[in-house]
């Protein structure tokens, strides 16, 4: 007989706002919203801002008119990543099996921990919650159940409970599913939810009671996976292995629309440097380089190019990226942003060397890349500007998220 698994989903409450309150404790009781950028939208709200009625995703220019009492803060993603890493490290100390799902969410395997800590699941969750609040200062909601989908639902329910913990055991599952709307289920969106409601499936329990053949014929394999997970059978396991990303991209809107090619190139170099250093961190090289340009009226141009020899070096990437940019660029169009997308990654450990390649040059490039990373680690981001076209052309991005800013 196999042991019944128990999974917890740890979800940080209003994560970006909580981080801002750690850095600036003076903001702790004020209505606060974090905004994605200068032309951005509201991405995180405090409880007080929610009471004021500030909706999620509202553009900043509308928000300042409709809800003036709220304080709008520019996001500092570098600081948020540092705080997130601290939380994830705490979770990894607590359990050997942790899957970091996003910057503010993680699945933790609770199986067997009751014997190790000599506590029940509720007390374990309570202890973890107190530990994160005490050591990092971020309030979290915890949902504990027998599968990832159930844990996700439980953590959503936990947000409306007093102690912000929701435990869904085997006996409570049916009652829990009957009170869960079909659209709340992880993996069922608005469109599918409407379709299911049209077919008479109003809550999660109705869905679970449907025949496997009925589900498979309408929603395919994914439909069956959801059903199995709702019944408490683990289909997607917790994996603490970090997978290589499928693509890496970096972009940011300009403060003012522009059609200056040198300015575009400078901004693109910042993004190229950012993705290349990220690429080096995961020990990979790219073989497809893509550049996109967004115009003032939201039209997007995208061009990509595949290279023969994979690279993680700024100057190599910018050589092709600038060519792509020039191909798409038109001097009589105003642009709002430029960005870079890298795809097709190969691990540097399994790198295939070329027969006629100059090993010395390749090593020099690799060492230069590593030196750039070291310099940034020591002196802060953008201390060295790689591939800059013209120093007189202003560049304003990147400073807000420098390590020295935190």
């Amino acid at each position, binding site marked *: 007989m196999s042991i019944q698994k128990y999974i917890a989903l740890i979800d940080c409450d209003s994560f970006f706002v909580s981080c801002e309150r750690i850095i600036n404790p003076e903001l702790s009781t004020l209505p606060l919203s974090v905004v994605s950028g200068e032309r951005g939208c509201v991405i995180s709200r405090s409880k007080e801002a929610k009471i004021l009625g500030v909706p999620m995703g509202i553009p900043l*220019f509308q928000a300042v008119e409709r809800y003036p009492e709220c304080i709008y803060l520019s996001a500092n993603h570098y600081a948020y990543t540092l705080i997130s890493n601290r939380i994830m490290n705490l979770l990894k100390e607590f359990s050997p099996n942790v899957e970091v799902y996003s910057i503010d969410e993680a699945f933790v395997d609770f199986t067997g921990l009751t014997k190790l800590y000599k506590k029940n699941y509720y007390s374990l969750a309570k202890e973890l919650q107190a530990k994160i609040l005490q050591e990092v200062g971020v309030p979290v909601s915890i949902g504990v159940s027998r599968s990832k989908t159930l844990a996700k639902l439980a953590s959503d329910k936990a947000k409306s409970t007093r102690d912000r913990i929701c435990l869904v055991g085997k006996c409570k599952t049916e009652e829990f599913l009957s009170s869960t709307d079909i659209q709340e289920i992880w993996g069922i969106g608005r469109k599918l939810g409407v379709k299911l409601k049209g077919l008479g499936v109003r809550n999660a329990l109705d869905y679970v009671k449907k025949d496997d053949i009925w589900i498979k014929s309408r929603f395919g394999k994914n439909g069956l996976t959801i059903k199995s997970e709702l019944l408490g059978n683990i289909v997607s396991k917790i994996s603490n292995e970090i997978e290589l990303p499928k693509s890496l991209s970096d972009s940011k809107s300009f403060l003012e629309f522009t059609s200056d090619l040198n300015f575009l190139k400078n901004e693109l170099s910042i993004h190229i440097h950012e993705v290349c250093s990220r690429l080096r961190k995961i020990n990979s090289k790219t073989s497809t380089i893509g550049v996109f340009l967004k115009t003032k009226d939201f039209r997007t141009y995208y061009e990509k190019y595949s290279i023969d020899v994979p690279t993680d070096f700024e100057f190599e990437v910018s050589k092709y990226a600038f060519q792509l940019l020039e191909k798409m660029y038109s001097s009589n169009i105003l642009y709002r942003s430029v960005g870079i997308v890298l795809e097709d990654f190969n691990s540097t450990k399994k790198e295939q060397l070329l027969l006629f390649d100059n090993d010395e040059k390749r090593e020099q490039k690799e060492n230069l890349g590593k030196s750039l990373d070291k310099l940034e680690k020591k002196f802060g981001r953008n201390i060295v500007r790689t591939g800059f076209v013209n120093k007189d052309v202003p560049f304003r991005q990147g400073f807000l998220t420098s390590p020295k800013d935190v």
Partner: protein
Amino acid sequence: MLDIKTGEKIEALYKMFQIKGGKRIEKFQTTDMKRALNFHKWYVNRYKEGLLMEIFPQKKVYDWKEKKVEYTFE
């Protein structure tokens, strides 16, 4: 504001921006968070319009030529 790594208090420059016609117009800047919040309160009461706050922590810059340490908010 507090340093995330050490938890120590560090100086910062608080700037308040008005968002109008897709542009940011700087309205106020101070190194005191309480003053920034008071300005925000006064501005909202007076103009019924919200403000964007940006925080620039103090940076230590070493001048290699002069061999001096300087502090800036940029």
